[in-house]
């Protein structure tokens, strides 16, 4: 009798074990790991636990990545990768020109305008100079032309009343030949130098010497926007008085590090240049696994997290509907946008700056 009971218990245990095993194996889709090159500014998003969970549970995807500059990644050998996730249309176009046979599918997933990060004393001085203006008592816009003229006119910090700083006014960016934020910024500066009109193959040669000089003055240029942004915050106003970056970087920082944000929020200033340029973030799939990632990243929940937690504008027009909690000073729409130069012109610019 006793042995029968024990036998029953064992049978039950076996059944439970099988059910548990089945549950573990069928509730989740087939699990794959996709690897690729990722622009540094999207690391926060791809490391977001909720995003990782959605990708894993709903789509069976674990995303592994290597950080690379947008331009750098299309030039690297990517034969062992499933995807590339740069932050510019230019990178996609370059890829299409050189390795179009490797392109499986691509889709623009996010947009982010180029902004200038600076510090309160500098913003105040720029307001005095009539270069920056505060809109709706909430966010700062900067006259791009006047701002760039400060640099090309070799103004010193003391000339605009920033006496704590030594030397010349500069705006630092990442290396336009390695990283997209620097590349976009070079496009913007080129347009401004071309009398605020989009520079093309026939006009680019006129402004190249001036542009080369502008970027030459930056000196050492970082390869990744995330590294430059971190140095801006960590090494401060004396080291990084003004840098070009993506709008999403500060929003993401504020949301991920609320305590740190509270420490710096009265000192850091985001300038929205008028005009600015849009950075689009296309996800380039190199095979079917990469294409699965494109599909998964379009999940409405992920798109929502991308804006509310990481500051990437997701609609085509980049208009935002929800406020980001704890963060202020974000314009709902970015109105004054100038087109980036076309790819051939862009390549001339990059070569000219090298």
């Amino acid at each position, binding site marked *: 009798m006793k*042995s029968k009971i*024990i*036998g029953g218990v*064992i049978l039950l*245990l*076996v059944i439970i*074990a099988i059910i*548990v*095993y089945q549950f*573990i194996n069928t509730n989740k889709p087939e*699990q794959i790991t996709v690897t690729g*090159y990722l622009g540094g500014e999207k*690391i926060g998003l791809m490391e977001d636990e909720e995003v990782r969970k959605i990708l894993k549970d709903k789509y069976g995807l*674990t995303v592994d*990545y*290597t*950080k*690379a500059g947008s331009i*750098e990644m299309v030039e*690297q050998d990517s034969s062992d990768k499933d995807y590339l996730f740069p932050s510019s249309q230019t990178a996609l176009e370059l890829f299409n020109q050189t390795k179009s046979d490797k392109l499986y599918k691509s889709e623009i997933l996010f947009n982010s305008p180029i902004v200038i990060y600076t510090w309160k004393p500098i913003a105040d001085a720029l307001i005095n100079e009539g270069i920056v203006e505060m809109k709706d008592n909430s966010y700062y816009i900067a006259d791009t032309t006047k701002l760039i003229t400060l640099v090309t006119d*070799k103004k010193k910090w003391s000339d605009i009343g920033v006496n*704590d*700083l*030594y*030397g*010349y006014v*500069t705006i630092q960016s990442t290396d336009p030949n390695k990283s997209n934020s620097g590349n976009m910024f070079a496009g913007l500066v080129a347009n401004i130098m071309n009398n605020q009109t989009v520079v093309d193959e026939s006009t680019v040669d006129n402004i190249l010497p001036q542009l080369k000089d502008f970027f*030459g*003055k*930056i*000196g*050492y*240029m*970082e*390869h*990744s926007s995330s*590294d430059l942004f*971190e*140095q801006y*915050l*960590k*090494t*401060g*106003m*004396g*080291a990084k008085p003004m840098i070009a970056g993506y709008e999403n970087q500060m929003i993401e920082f504020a949301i991920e590090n609320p305590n*740190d944000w509270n*420490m*710096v929020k009265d*000192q850091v200033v985001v300038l929205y240049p008028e005009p600015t340029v849009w950075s689009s973030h296309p996800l380039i799939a190199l095979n079917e696994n990469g294409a699965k990632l494109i599909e998964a990243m379009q999940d409405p929940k992920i798109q929502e997290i991308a804006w509310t937690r990481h500051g990437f504008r997701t609609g085509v027009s980049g208009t935002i509907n929800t406020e980001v909690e704890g963060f202020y000073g974000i314009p709902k729409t970015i109105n004054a946008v100038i087109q980036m130069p076309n790819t051939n012109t862009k390549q001339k610019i990059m070569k000219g700056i090298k």
Partner: protein
Amino acid sequence: MNEKVKKNKKIILAVLIILILLIIVIISFSTQSKNGSIFSSKETLNILSGSENQVLEPILEEFEKENNIQINMTYEGSVDIMQELQNGAEDYDAVFPANSIWISMGDTHLKVKHQQSITTTPVVFGIKKSVAERLGFVGKDVTTKDILEKIKSKELSFMMTSATQSNSGATAYLGFIYALLDNPEVITAEDLDNEALKSDLTTILSGVNRSSGSSDWLKDLFLQSDYDAMVNYESIIIDTNKELVAEGKEPLYVIYPKDGLGIADSPLGYIDNGDQGKEEAFLKLEDYLTSDEVKPKLLELGRRTSYSINFENSNPDVFNEDWGIDTKKVLNVMKMPSADVIKKALNMYQTELRKPSLTVYCLDYSGSMYGEGVESLRNAMNMLLDQNEASTYMLQASPKDVTIVIPFDDQVLDVWKAEGNDATTLTNLQNEINNFEPQGGTNIYAPLVTAMDEISKYNVADYTTSIILMSDGMSNSGSIQEVMDKWDSTKLDIPIFSITFGDSDERELQELADFSKARVFDGKKDLEKAFKQAKGYN
């Protein structure tokens, strides 16, 4: 009947055990992808780091204990770290240099991720307060050029690390160039060809009495010597001052040049060699080092944590205002020139501008070196003397360098000399080293006496002078007393560096290092690296 029940029970028990094992296996399989198997062994992180992080070891040890993760730190100079990354850094899991520029210049394989600055500390001048007051540097804005003028006119003697081996030295050296060029918008390659600049730099660097390959060791050397000033990290000046004050000596006064030197942002980055367990261990370490629990400990070490502003609540005994330390001041930073210009400037330092080296190698050719030992020795010396190879480590000779090699067993066997950096001369020296065969006993003291005699033939003030002794065994004749007597009688303050190998007696070598203010390098694991390090100090 009883028998049968017993037998049944045994079967049931066996089935149960098998079942339980099965369940464990299933569970461990299903969680394996996330946390690794439950049977996994201790994770190890091999970290390639700058020497200034040596002071973090107690903090790292706590992490090791709490997390059952083992950390192996390897300390190297910035240029070596950059080089190692360029070579793929297969043996390392993380990199922790003083400045992110070395990662971005080195990471050509794009293997570094999760890079984050752990602390910051500016590169500053630390000057004895009485001297700073006398020179009029206290209570006002001082530029790098103001300080350099005093160095040029010999009113101020100072120490700095080698620009080609250490980040603080490189930063200071580039800061000097920037100041001497009257703070241009950015330093260009053409600027570096300026003859007046070169001559100024040569004068200034000739005042550096002894250089060092590491910022941390520069502090030790400073404490043993009598210089007015050193260029180093604010955190190391704080550390130095703690020791000076404890010894009842005058602390250093920190000058933040108005035109800026540089800031070490101490980035920690993961080197992705495709091991997920290591990556998780790394992230734990990074979280730990940036946690609110560890921040106060880093502040105690004089490191600035968190963000560049609102740097408050720091311990006034550490960030001491009497030492000139100012946590509110905007830290101006010189703009780093482009990578090509940095490389050109560093090469110029090594082959043209630095104070020339007079280096005597005393090399053990005793019988026990026969075979592999002498092979390793030859490889190490060829690496330093072959200028192509030496240039990858920025250890090239300059036209004014003097290299002397003294082979020994139980007596001095010969003296070989090479003056300058001419390829034929250096190749001849290599041939001597490569063709000489080991034999006999060991006397490490006799060659040191000969070395000092050889050095005395030169005008020592014109050189950074040193003896590098490499030995694989205990001395069975001679005595340290003869070396000490000779050292005292020459009055030349020659450091005797040693490299251990095989069964060498570290105590003997440490004694030599102690009285001559030098140090001992471990060549037992990697002889080439030890030679590289020792040369980097000279």
